[in-house]
């Protein structure tokens, strides 16, 4: 039984399909980080005084921090002075519609299979595309405007809605939160901003495609989503990156705020370049994502499909402050070759009768290490809080590892916390059974993996589910039946 399955091994040897570099002139700052870099970024973006002050505060704080190494990850030292902290495609004026966008950019999107036009008209998805660090196209704005929804790039929001930014920026992930969040606060270049006014149900899935493009440019986005009382929004984040040799740092911050009876659904498909089969190159993905259910009966739901990046360090969390608020976390993390993922969630129950569900699926193949790390914390006043956690790991190959590090902290006798986990592999029996029924190994593996992840995949919005299944499949085999 221990004999490696050759077919399986072959399936795991797939190249990264989305690896290419678009050649566009970039407006890039020289590498290095000091207070002047922060000032330069702020000046380039023509930011108001409060933003610069906040960035500088974050930079000062970051200077005194040391990089955390508690995660189950191994990587070489990162030289923060060798990174260029700002890179914007050279556009003299902001484009008014797609025809003004550099055709090369459009070409990149086409290669990725996300033609903006098609998405705009056919799929009904508004796309705020981030190419490297600056937004170049925002569609569907008018329609959303009518409903009072603000969906724009972060820099636009800073210019046009400084009051909202000032009120909410850093209120969930403060600039003192952790090493990478502080770094992001100091140097973030752009990102998305969403505000849904009271009682409005956003009629479409809001979507942003992030791409890392210019060589040696760390990408530091910051996303802020606010759902006001009774509002609903579903937000999609997807990532693909061109193939390159050196490691790139990515430290994003996402903040979600749900007020009374509001709902936010945040879905991610992450497929950045994971490095080659020898573990050379790949993206370092250190992300801080956190949502706060500030109002009663509010709900925040995270769904993530993580197939890319050489290193993933990511714990989308929910602070359940409002009574009867709900937090959800659904995750599929797939690691192959030399990829390492340390991912999971934190659910902090503060309000009464708060509820959280955590479903995490980890798949580890090749030489990869896949870790679930979670925290469920119930404070003394969270009467009737309930958490259910299930994390399963699937191992494929004799050199990979799958680890589960949950942390449960309860200070309330009326709270109920349940945690379950299992670890297994694709057995020869399962493959034999399917082969017997005329299903070849490739399809059998994909069926088993898909079945394993089904609980999570079904929570993805339709538009995303197809792509997510594809990405999951690409990382393991040629096609999915």
């Amino acid at each position, binding site marked *: *039984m*221990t004999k490696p399955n050759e077919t399986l091994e072959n399936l795991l040897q797939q190249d990264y399909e989305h690896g290419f570099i678009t050649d566009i002139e970039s407006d890039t700052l020289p590498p290095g980080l000091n207070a002047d870099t922060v000032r330069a970024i702020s000046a380039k973006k023509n930011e108001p005084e409060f933003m610069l002050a906040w960035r500088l505060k974050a930079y000062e704080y970051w200077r005194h921090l040391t990089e955390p190494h*508690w995660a*189950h990850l191994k990587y070489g030292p990162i030289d923060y002075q060798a990174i260029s902290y700002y890179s914007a495609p050279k556009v003299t004026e902001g484009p008014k519609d797609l025809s003004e966008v550099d055709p090369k950019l459009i070409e990149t999107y086409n290669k990725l299979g996300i033609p903006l036009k098609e998405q705009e008209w056919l799929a009904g998805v508004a796309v705020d595309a981030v190419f490297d660090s600056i937004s170049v196209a925002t569609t569907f704005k008018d329609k959303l405007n009518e409903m009072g929804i603000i969906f724009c790039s972060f820099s636009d929001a800073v210019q046009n809605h400084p009051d909202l930014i000032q009120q909410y920026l850093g209120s969930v992930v403060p600039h003192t939160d952790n090493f990478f969040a502080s770094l992001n606060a100091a140097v973030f270049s752009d990102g998305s901003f969403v505000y849904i006014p009271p009682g409005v149900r956003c009629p479409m899935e809001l979507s942003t495609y992030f791409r890392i493009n210019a060589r040696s440019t760390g990408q530091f986005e910051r996303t802020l989503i606010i759902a006001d009382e009774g509002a609903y929004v579903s937000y999609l984040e997807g990532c693909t990156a061109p193939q390159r040799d050196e490691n790139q740092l990515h430290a994003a911050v996402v903040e979600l705020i749900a007020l009374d009876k509001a709902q936010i659904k945040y879905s991610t498909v992450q497929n950045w370049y994971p490095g080659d089969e020898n573990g050379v190159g790949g993206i370092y993905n250190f992300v801080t994502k956190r949502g706060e259910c500030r109002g009663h009966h509010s709900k925040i739901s995270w769904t993530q499909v993580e197939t890319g990046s050489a290193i993933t360090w990511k714990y989308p969390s929910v602070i359940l402050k409002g009574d009867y608020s709900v937090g959800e976390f659904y995750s599929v993390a797939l690691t192959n070759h030399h990829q390492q993922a340390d991912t999971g969630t934190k659910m902090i129950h503060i309000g009464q009768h708060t509820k959280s569900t955590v479903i995490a699926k980890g798949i580890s193949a090749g030489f990869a290490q896949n870790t679930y790390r979670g925290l469920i914390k*119930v404070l*003394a*006043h969270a*009467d009737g809080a309930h958490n259910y956690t299930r994390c399963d*790991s699937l*191992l*494929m*190959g*004799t*050199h*990979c*590892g*799958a*680890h*589960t*590090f*949950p*942390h*449960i*902290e*309860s*200070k*309330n*006798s*009326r*709270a*109920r*916390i*349940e*945690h*379950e*986990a*299992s*670890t*297994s*592999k694709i057995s020869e029996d399962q493959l034999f059974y399917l082969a017997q029924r005329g299903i070849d190994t490739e399809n059998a593996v994909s069926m088993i993996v898909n079945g394993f992840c089904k609980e999570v995949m079904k929570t993805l919005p339709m538009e995303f589910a197809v792509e997510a299944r594809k990405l999951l499949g690409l990382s393991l085999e040629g096609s999915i039946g």
Partner: protein
Amino acid sequence: MISQSLFAACAVLPGWDKHLRLDAWQNWQTMPLPTIRDEAWKYTNLARLEKTIFIKPATTPSSLTLNDIPLTIPEDRFCFINGSFNPALSAPLNAESYLLSQRAWPSIPKKQQTPVSYFERLNAAMLSDGLYLDIKKNSNNPIYLVLLQDKTAEFSTHHLRHRIKVHAGIKSEIVIVDWGLADTTSLTTYVIDIELSEGAELNCIHLKKAGTQGYHIRQTHAHLAKNSHLNHFNFDFGAKLSRNEISAWLQGEHAACQLNGLALARAQDHIDNQTKIGHLAPKTNSLEQYRGIIDDKACHIFHGHVLIDAHAPDSIANQQNKNILLTSTGQAYAEPQLEIYNQNVQCIHGATVGDIDAEALFYLRSRGLSDEIARQLLIFGFARSILETIHDKSLQSELALWIKTHLALDSELILDLYREDDHEDIN
């Protein structure tokens, strides 16, 4: 916490390696006290321990009798009072044994002699007594190792180290009792090395009830050879700070271990259970069940780490932790962790924290039991499922009585249930 003068005043065990002792003391002094910023100590704050000044080494044994503790201690026993061996109360029978004070450190492997952690170093530096048990014969009766502390132990520190070796193919049972007769402020460190040779089997039952002001830190390290089997039971009735670190290394094929534990924490007790199971060889098997009942302002921590090495295919690990939190002033922390480097394994773990199951309570109420009695039955039933994993029936019923008294369960139904030897699981 412990001054140089106390170290100097501490009697050196005859034959004890002076260099090792001095090295350990020096290393201990240079090592900072673990803080809540250290992952392994994040829920256990030692600040209060640091502020407590201990002034006495192990004190001279006083006139205690075994009747002072509510447990029948049969013959074949070794008694230590306030950290020192007491020949008057001891009655060794079969096991080949010698005190560390007679032949210190005879066979402890070199690499285990070098203390690593903070409290192991302190233990090696200040060692007050210990026992070397060389078990070469099968025995039907358990060997008792009893440590008693009375009120003269106020502000003293005791440091014991036992080494237990079970030879190939031998079956044995050891019951270790730590009993604080008074609520004295004292610090006890305890290091126990267990070595199981090929095919050996050991039941090790550890009962601990330190006084409400006691600091009790125990480290148990077990090394298991091929086909050997360890059943370790850890019953902790609380202390101001009780920490039990247990590691089991399954080094030979088909080695198996069972680590079970029950923490009964009430008042201001703080019980910290840290276990580690290392599957280092193929076809190794581990089962772990830890339960906690937390009342008043008490706290229970369970940290369980199962490591499956790349060289341990076909291993099976099952780890369960359940906690009943009876008050909202109490705290429960659970960290059931799996670290797996081999695909041919079957591993599951689970953890729960909550109050008594409302449905079970309703069921019993609907059968005419009062709320109070129904709750008591359920609490006892929760503890009982760990209790029943002990094979020794007489010890089981004695422990049942302890548990009943300790949790102030007054329902006669509980003991009736037990006396009838009703094996139906009421939980």
